[in-house]
């Protein structure tokens, strides 16, 4: 099963897990499986129209799915899907 790396901001919704397994043959299916398991992640990943939010970057291994086939990008069992939000912490 593909793994999903969970960023710090979403871990409150995955019981603190930093990496979870989620079934699916493409990126969209994997993310939907994640949402099915952890419903509170949905609002942060998808818009009400069901599209991936623009402020969420999703990587398949080391490549941005925006330059692949987006949510249709095929995923194999050994792949890692990474959810990458912008972070701004640093200064204060």
């Amino acid at each position: 099963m593909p793994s999903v790396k969970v960023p710090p901001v979403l871990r409150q919704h995955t019981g603190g897990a930093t990496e979870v397994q989620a079934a699916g043959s493409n990126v969209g299916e994997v993310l939907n499986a994640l949402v099915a398991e952890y419903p509170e992640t949905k609002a942060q990943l998808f818009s009400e129209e069901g599209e991936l939010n623009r402020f969420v970057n999703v990587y398949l291994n080391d490549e941005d799915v925006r330059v692949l086939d987006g949510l249709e990008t095929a995923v194999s069992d050994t792949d890692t899907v990474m959810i990458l939000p912008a972070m701004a912490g640093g200064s204060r």
Partner: protein
Amino acid sequence: MAPETTETSVVKEITPNEAWAELQEGDAKLIDTREPHEHAEAHIEGGRLIPPALIADQIAGAAAKTDRVILQCRSGARSAAAAEVLMELGYEDVVSMAGGILEWEAQGLPVASDAGLTPEQRDRYSRHTLLPEVGVEGQVKLLNAKVLLLGAGGLGAPTALYLAAAGIGKIGIVDDDVVDASNLQRQVIHNTSRVGQPKSSSARQSIEELNPDVEVVEYNFRLNAGNILDVISDYDIIVDGADNFPTRYLLNDASVRLKKPVVSASILSFDGQISTFVPYEGPCYRCLYPTPPPPELAPSCSANGVLGVMAGLMGMLQANEVMKLVLGIGEPLVGRLLLYEALGTRFTELKVRRDPECPICGPDAPEVPESEMGQFPDYEAFCGGYTGS
């Protein structure tokens, strides 16, 4: 053993002008076989110093046996002797420069010297100048470099200390905050006795005590669309450790316009991210993150913990990027986003590409008026502008 005259006769020689032409091509390795004090007085740029007594021991670190090696000394005698040593070691393509650096200078070819450094600086930066990748030329570049730090906080504090120690000639610090006791768990440039002082002046004190070579400029205010171009135009490189999205987008838009490289890092709890944005060479911050997250997904908007050591680690990675950019060596994190997870001690590298539709650095990007830099249609809605974490 063959007679000495026979051995000497097999050493091939080239003229200084031929050596110059080869060095311009960039294929040959130049080895300066003199003593350090001679090298300091005058040397050929790009050459590596290996004194005659060390040539057999140190050559392996400077050239491979198949490399084209040009040896050079003062007049041509020591370099010819060294060439014999290398040929005995199996170096296949070795030549000695006839007449040495004396003839080189007589032909009007350029030499560099350590004259750019004072005796105190030669001593202070000797561990830099001993590195062939840095050398005196590199140290002079560092001393002439101007680096602006956004924030003298978690990231800026360690970055500023190491850049100051490295001899970065001018360091600007933008921070309008004052030192708080809760900063001291990670902001190592400040200290207990300076709680309540402006961070920019506390940082200046630490830097001046560490290295009097560094000129520190304090900017004890927040950047906005009206002042950012003025501030950053004086600098070669900007180090972004800002704690909020509006400043990060504002800096991106202004730095792309002025074509200033930005070393950008952020930290949260046990996680860090870093990338180097070189305008038009690689992606910009907006190519990576086209829009900021809403407040509920923007953890900098509320109080969050951070492991103090994380700030140090990511700050060091930022300082390392600055050093490479100034020296022109290595591979900066251009087009690459490096993630660090402290608990697992894992680094992950992701590819970041230029977005052909980027509103700031894309080929069809419109001219953005200054008043709109860093803006989004719903700008006011997120994070209430500035909120410290």
